[in-house]
């Protein structure tokens, strides 16, 4: 089968429960917002392929499956992730304060060079706002991470956020490829598929996303 994209990026959504991670995911992948989606049951990840500078970039965006609720995200969730959206709710001070804890969690578990971005979601709810945009910007400067306020409900900046993160990952990747040309250390690992003929060693699926 011909490959329908040039790059595959695994992205994660991280942040406290109820900040709107699943809504952001649905806004971006389905261009939909519906309160009934809020329960994350059955949703692993969503896929959307975007076009960046003439390259087809397939984004595989993983939801936490509610495992953030009691801070019990599996270390396996972070494996192989290339970009992470750190999400807080501008109407919830605690979720903003917890961003620092999530960053620590990422540093502990994700690859050291994972791209990050901070999103202050629910910015449509201005009357209930507890966290000013300036404080969000300040935090982002402190950690040298990009930042944007979003509204999954009003479809504000969600596209922008994913495009920005994807572009940064792509740029980093292309820079790396120019600098040195070894295939990724992990190529050769593979996922198990039901319908693989798996006869000849040469036909194994490579896990490397740039081929």
């Amino acid at each position, binding site marked *: *089968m011909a*490959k*329908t*994209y040039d790059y*595959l990026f695994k992205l994660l959504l991280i942040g406290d429960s109820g900040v709107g991670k699943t809504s952001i995911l649905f806004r971006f992948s*389905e*261009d*939909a917002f*519906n309160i009934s989606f809020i*329960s*994350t*049951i*059955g*949703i*692993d*990840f*969503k896929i*959307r*392929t*975007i*076009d960046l500078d003439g390259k087809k970039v*397939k984004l*595989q965006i993983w939801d936490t*499956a*509610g*495992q953030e*609720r*009691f*801070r*019990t995200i*599996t*270390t*396996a*969730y972070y*494996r*192989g992730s290339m970009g992470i959206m750190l999400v807080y709710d501008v109407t919830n001070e605690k979720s903003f304060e917890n961003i620092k804890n999530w960053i620590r969690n990422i540093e*502990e578990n994700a690859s*050291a060079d994972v791209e990050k971005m901070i999103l202050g979601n629910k910015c449509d709810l201005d009357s209930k706002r507890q966290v000013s945009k300036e404080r969000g910007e300040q935090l982002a400067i402190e950690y040298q991470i990009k930042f944007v306020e979003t509204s999954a409900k009003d479809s504000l900046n969600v596209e922008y956020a994913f495009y920005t993160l994807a572009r940064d990952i792509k740029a980093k990747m292309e820079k*790396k490829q120019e*600098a*040195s040309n*070894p295939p990724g*250390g*992990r190529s*050769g*690992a*593979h*996922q*198990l*598929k*039901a319908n693989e003929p*798996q*006869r000849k*060693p040469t036909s*194994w*699926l*490579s896990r*490397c*996303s740039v*081929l």
Partner: protein
Amino acid sequence: MDDDLPTDFQVIVVGTGMVESIVAAACSRIGKNVLHLDLSDHYGGLWASYNFDGLQKFIKEVNSDPKRDLQVYNLCEKWYIEKESPEAKDGGDENKTDDSKAEPAKKTWSQSDFTAEYRKFNIDMTPKLLFSRGPLVELLISSNIARYAEFRCVTRVLTWLNNRLMPVPCSRADVFATEAVTTVEKRMLMKMLTSIVGYNEDEMNNEFKDWNDKTFQDYLKHKGLTPNLIHYVLFAIAGGNNNMPCLEGVKECKKFLMSLGRYGNTPFLWPMYGSGELPQCFCRLCAVFGGVYCLNRPIDKVGTKTVDEGKTVVTIESKAKTLNCDHLVIGINECPKELISPEPAESCDISKAVFITNGSIMASEKEPLSLLRFPPLADDDKAVTVLEVGPATGSCPKGLFVVYFIASKSKDAETDLKPYAERIFDMSGGDAESDKPKCLWSLFYNVKDTSAPVSSVVEGVHVCSGPDAGLDFDRAVEQAEQIFKKICPGEEFLPRAPDPEEIVFEDDVTHGPEFQRDHDDDEPKE
């Protein structure tokens, strides 16, 4: 912060070991309301993988917690290298390895390098392999949980023969390529292996009915195999010893041979980042289907109470809260002893060791992933299984290898395993040149074998076994399915979870016009 934990569930699972996690996933998958707890702050229990920092904490915890000591004991950690490397003083950060750069041939490692790169280690407490056509691989594929994990093929099977390491020819191509056996032996071996693969269960029982009280070794001798071939088949392929019963040997051989040719040169797969990832994959599926997760949650008491209509529920006291469920699935290490019946029979404990070395036990062009089956070196010894994994598996930084030793316990882990380690590593700790890789760090420990199935005196309480000494996960999968069938009779065990693209929402979803959507597989194909 877990005060808002709901209190009523259909199924509560305590412990995140392999059996518990599979049961949790299976129950959640068919719609049961599941709470999954662990007493410690990480997943896996005795099945966990640790980074180097986490491992240090684990060692401290075991040494300071007498209760835990019952499961893991005789823990002995040792360094063979300096605290600081001499060049670190002026080199500063440059000593840190960079994944994108090729590592110089042999770096001089210091303890501080390990500390600095602690995150790059994933060290397993219960390292295990998967047979390519074994029950766990089939379950991962049929349930679609395979999408949470990645694997590497074991690249070679080695044995210790005539006082040196030898690759075991395990495919037809290997058999014919090897120079270690003569052409006549090759024919003999192929004939023997082909006939074993050909037997179905009945034929096997019939063919071997006169061999019930004899050893596999006797059978191989009877078949006229030469001593070299007997060594390959008995120790390396069947993973046996001199006393292995004949039928068991034949079955082990068949299992090995049946898993050949699916993914790589050998019948085995190793999970990326270690065996400890696998329970987490099942936990993820459980969570995706609504399972609630809470770690760091000690339980104080397990009891029962009768509610309306004489129905009995199991209750758990935890952090001043009472949690209720119809079924409690609990790891044997977490289960209050008075609930277990009968007391598990005294079994042979397990001796284990982990070594970190600066090179592979047998150099090869590409990074190897090796299974070494050591035959007993002395008459009353047990066979030792050795697994060597390198940086490509996410187990350690570049330039290092992690090597696991597993055997049934005779005396204690160090006494049992050190003589074997010394055959393949330079354990002198000196700078002297050696043709063997240098051992930089080692950990010996014994684990109580809690793998025998036990039942509970309380209805609705299901006890999960701990890790066994075996090479694969098959017993864990089998037990998990049995427990699931008791909890959910008549229900399908882990039916395939849909891919995200297959989930259609009934709500009116409008798609943005400007982007092309695709629905192909989420994996690159060539």
